[in-house]
């Protein structure tokens, strides 16, 4: 059938911490013609692995992440597929059971720390909330743990800052608070939804460093969603590129970025600024991604793809493995990248 699931190979099944299989997310309709936003997404994240998902706005990368955290917006739901966390099926798991996982097992960091922090609760109390609930700590112990976590994320004068409100802190500090909050219960999987997009580049760099260090300390796996290839490059070991609700290409970060096998990935690389080669001319991808309801019949990228042939417009290309661990969903991959050494 499809070689996609083989991307992880059978051996990793036992090892994978998060296994997402054929996930479809969308808006369910009474008369069957559901609006599908995320279609047939599969990937594996092993314990301690750092996995990045790259895509433009509307590619469905955030929804995929939110489906894992059970934070899909109202009206949007998992239509089919499976999300296995540590061998347990999350799709259809009762809410109460799932909430018990959130915090000590799975934690999440959001894009905009200003809105993701409760404006009327002191940040220290917000960090302490999870440990009090899940680790059964007393108010005082949880508070000192919160201060300790804040210190670990590099917040100066954490004791005083723990009594501050979100609006009294800078963007970088706020995001450090979010990180402290997320790792306070030492989760095994940390979901990051564009955690540095709202920050300027230097702060972004520092925050990513803190995130990496903390995850390395606790052996926490990362699922990292971003539109920024440079961030994935810095933070992750393996990655997937999403386009219009599907995974276009996936593999190790080194492999995908240095040896792309999907014309969309190629386009992304050509249009992204490269600090090593500042003179290189940026080539934007022509056109715009299709809307959720206006997706073409075949490959969603076909209308923008300079290499598209007839087949691309009639059938959806399956994900196929090129080299072990590296797969692409492109019929013409071999032809397009023939001259490039694999």
């Amino acid at each position, binding site marked *: 059938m499809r070689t996609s699931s083989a991307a992880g190979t059978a051996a990793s099944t036992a090892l994978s911490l998060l296994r997402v299989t054929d996930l479809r997310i969308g808006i369910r309709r009474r008369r069957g013609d559901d609006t599908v936003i995320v279609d047939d997404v599969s990937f594996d994240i092993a314990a301690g692995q750092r996995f990045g998902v790259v895509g433009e706005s509307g590619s469905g990368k955030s929804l995929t992440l939110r489906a894992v*955290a*059970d*934070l899909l*917006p*109202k009206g949007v739901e998992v239509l089919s597929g499976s999300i296995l966390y540590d061998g347990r099926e999350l799709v259809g798991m009762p*809410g*109460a059971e799932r*909430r*018990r*996982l*959130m*915090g*000590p097992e*799975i*934690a*999440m960091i*959001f894009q*905009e720390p200003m*809105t*993701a*922090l*409760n*404006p*009327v*609760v002191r940040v220290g109390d*917000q960090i302490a*909330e*999870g440990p009090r*609930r*899940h680790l059964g700590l007393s108010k005082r112990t949880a508070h000192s743990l919160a201060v300790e976590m804040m210190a670990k994320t590099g917040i100066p004068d954490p004791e005083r800052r723990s009594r501050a*409100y979100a*609006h*009294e802190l800078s963007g970088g500090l706020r995001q450090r608070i*979010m990180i402290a*909050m*997320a790792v306070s219960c030492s989760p095994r999987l940390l*979901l990051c939804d564009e955690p540095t997009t709202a920050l300027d580049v230097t702060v972004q760099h520092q925050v990513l460093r803190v995130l990496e260090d903390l995850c390395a300390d606790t052996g926490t796996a990362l699922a990292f969603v971003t539109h920024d290839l440079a961030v994935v490059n810095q933070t992750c070991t393996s990655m997937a590129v999403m386009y219009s609700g599907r995974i276009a290409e996936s593999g190790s970060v080194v492999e995908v970025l240095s040896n792309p096998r999907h014309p969309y990935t190629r386009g992304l690389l050509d249009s992204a600024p490269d600090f090593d080669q500042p003179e290189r001319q940026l080539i934007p991808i022509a056109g715009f991604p299709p809307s959720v309801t206006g997706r073409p019949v075949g490959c969603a990228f076909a209308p923008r793809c300079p290499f598209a042939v007839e087949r691309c417009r009639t059938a959806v290309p399956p994900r196929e493995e090129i080299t072990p661990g590296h797969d692409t969903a492109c019929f013409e991959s071999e032809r397009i990248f023939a001259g490039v050494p694999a």
Partner: protein
Amino acid sequence: MLHRLSFVPGRLLQSVPVAFGVTLLVFFLAHLLPGNAALALLGQRATPESVAALTEQLGLNKPLWEQYLLFLKQLGQGNLGTSLTYQSPVTGLVLGAIPVTLTLLAYALVLSLAISIPLSALASFRPGGGRDLGVRAFTLLGQGMPQFWVGIMLILLLAVGLRTFPVGGYGETAGEHLYFLFLPSLTLAIAMSPTIIRSLRSSMITVLESDYVGTAKSKGASGVSLLTGHVLRNAAIPTVSVIGVNLGYLVGGSLVIERVFALPGLGSLMINSIFTRDFPTVQGVTLFVALFVVVVGILTDVIYTILDPRVDLGRASSA
């Protein structure tokens, strides 16, 4: 915290013109009485001597501005004049009636919140759902029923029908007060809740969709802990000012409701005084109620500031 309350003195100062306006308006109302005020006040009891005496007593033969200054001076001394019916200082009458009305108001506010918070939570959880529609029907009905009629219906159902509550009166002990005041407070709460629910429901919907509630969920919060820890406090902020603005409405309603349940509060005092044409008392009650509303406005700002750490009214008003 404290420095954010530094706006209070300024806010108090701001209310001074309003308070003066209130006294002026009340004073002006007193002089709207057509013809000879003393005669009008005394009505059927008027004799040439009593009219002359009252004219003298009220200072009605002096120029208007002098009368106003006298009125202010007496007010400053806590003197609201002498009741024509009871022949005793109005201040004493008002002070005697205040506890009843204040208890009624506080009780009604507590019951309003006890009704509004669960109903708003129920409605906001799934907007447009069956429960939401039910709550909306309640708010629509609650606003469409005359308050005094709700009181009569409660008497009919609970006092006359089921004999669970007294038809009226205030009781002697604190426990009795709570028992006797339950129906009148419930009446006011039914009238007040729709306004609170409207505000709380919509702000709860906004809060439930907010990112920080997502964060709280990602920390494993749900149900009651989510509601009390994250939703309610945020949703309460806009609702506080809605309650503040509508407290005047509640006060007005309580005056009428006291009448329905024969409670010896400000409302009964005022309406009885109206029937006996006891103008100094009517004036005293009116003045007190209006000044009370002004104070409530300031209190609302204080509570608002305490609830929302982002608000800095001091900075806003000095800028």
